[in-house]
């Protein structure tokens, strides 16, 4: 995928810088802070930001800055890992269903229609409600729900592409179905999937943070932006810094992913339209 980078706006590059910093935080958190994110210090409880603790400390004396930095890894991991599994699975299902058609395809689409009628967050919360909270079930819930969109998206494109002349040509050459699907059809669907997947990373990250905020996702004391905010909520009146900094990080990361996603999808669509 060749993209002309000169066309992007300043905002796009700012967002890229923010994301690079967040990625760096998740890769080498030790570079940013020397404090342990879960070590409690009973001599420094609920301290406002000062020289030693630049983001202050929380109700257990933990350094808020190091908690925010160490959260980056888990939050990005949730966003990416919760996206990639249903993306691959949904793409496979959508490709097979669209390529072969027939009864299996009709049944699958009927089932998808029923379940896309339920909003994603409602389904995710329902699954977590039934299976119990925790990070493992959080992934299962998003995985079970997330593949619907990919399957629908991919299928709708495959149905169009499979009737194109070059697919007929590939068939005349005697290529196998697998080769046609993976070498000739999928590469043409890829840009659509990538565009959706980038936004999906953000959605999954926000969903993970929301569930953790409700106490249904990442358990304490693991550092995660949503969970830190949930902890700090009770001290909101006196210690604003506990929720303000993870909130700013979460917002900046979400907005940056959106901006980068918008920029890339614009570039990909431009490229496809010549």
């Amino acid at each position: 995928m060749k993209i002309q980078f000169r066309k992007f706006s300043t905002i796009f590059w700012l967002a890229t810088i923010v994301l690079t910093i967040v990625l760096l935080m998740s890769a080498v958190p030790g570079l940013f802070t020397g404090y342990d994110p879960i070590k409690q210090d009973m001599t420094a409880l609920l301290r406002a930001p000062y020289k030693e603790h630049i983001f202050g400390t929380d109700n257990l004396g933990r350094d808020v800055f190091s908690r925010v930095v160490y959260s980056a890894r888990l939050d990005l991991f949730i966003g990416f890992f919760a996206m990639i599994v249903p993306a691959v699975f949904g793409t496979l299902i959508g490709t097979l269903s669209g390529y072969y058609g027939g009864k299996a395809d009709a049944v699958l689409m009927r089932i998808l229609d029923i379940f896309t009628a339920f909003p994603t967050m409602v389904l995710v919360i329902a699954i977590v409600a039934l299976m119990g909270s925790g990070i493992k079930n959080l992934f299962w819930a998003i995985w079970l729900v997330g593949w619907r969109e990919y399957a629908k998206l991919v299928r709708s494109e495959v149905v169009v592409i499979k009737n194109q002349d070059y697919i007929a040509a590939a068939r005349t050459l005697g290529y196998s179905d697998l080769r046609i699907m993976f070498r000739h059809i999928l590469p043409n669907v890829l840009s659509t999937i990538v565009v959706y997947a980038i936004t999906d990373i953000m959605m999954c990250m926000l969903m993970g943070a929301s569930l953790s905020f409700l106490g249904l996702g990442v358990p304490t004391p693991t550092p995660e932006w949503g969970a830190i905010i949930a902890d700090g909520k009770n001290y909101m009146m006196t210690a604003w810094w506990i929720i303000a900094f993870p909130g700013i990080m979460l917002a900046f990361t979400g907005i940056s992913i959106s901006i980068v996603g918008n920029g890339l999808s614009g570039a990909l669509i431009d490229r496809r339209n010549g």
Partner: protein
Amino acid sequence: MDEFVYILKRILQMIPVLIIVTVLIFFGMRMIPGDPALLMLGNRASDEALAMMHAKLGFDKPLMIQYFLFLRDCVLFRFGDSITLRMPITELFKQKAAITISLTAMTIIFDVLISVPLGIYCGMHKDSKLDTFLNSASLVFVSIPEFLIGLVLLMLLAVRIHVFPVGGWGNSFGEHIRSLILPSLTGALMTSSLVMRNIRENVIKVLNMDYVDFARSKGLPEIWVRMRYVLRNVLIPAVTLLAMRMTAMLAGSIVIESIFALPGIGQMMLNAILARDYPLVQATVYLFALIVMIMNLITDVSYSILDPRVKL
């Protein structure tokens, strides 16, 4: 007549889906490792207490019988008692529904008040300063989780300057309204960004339509053209989008009610999940499924009423 047949057909189609939903709820909860009764009572529960809880939950009967009893209860809306709140679940729903419904209604009112005028203005004045600004603002609100928006509003308008109550439901009608403003604004900001963008795109599209040019060339006053020809065609997709967001509000209500301490269905469900109050969780999930399906039906029907070109 056609519409009646269509609605009847849709209601009949809901039955197999609801049965699938009950199967998923029932067996989903039984697939969890561990004994729900033990989880509810704690590890040190005596054998007698455990046996009593098993009998209460119906675990002493064969699995299939248990499922059919559950299905019967779902059909009759007879959900038994909540374990933590020690009250009939149907009664709980009746008490809490008013709060969640008022929250949803007020959110929709805010949605419309924000998105319709701004969306139309931005569509008519494409690339103006306000349009560019609102476009970026809507991107921001879509990329931030609802709980963060709620907390920011809470910090600014309730904690710093005491314009609104920090939480709770209040005792009088006036207090109810006052305590609903921030929660519904929280829910509305994200939805109205989506709806505003949708309206904006459609205004731009419709303004370029031939029938708008034709209406203008007939010499109709501009205001008439906009009201009669543009607005109507723009609002139809917006209504559908809004209705879709209303079902998503079910999940939103869990987040929003927990931030603002509104004792509605969402908060009750969250507490039920955290306390592993399984009968209450099952009943709420079932109820959510039912509401989503009914809402979708209403959306489809209202779509055909608003737009005569759409056949049911």
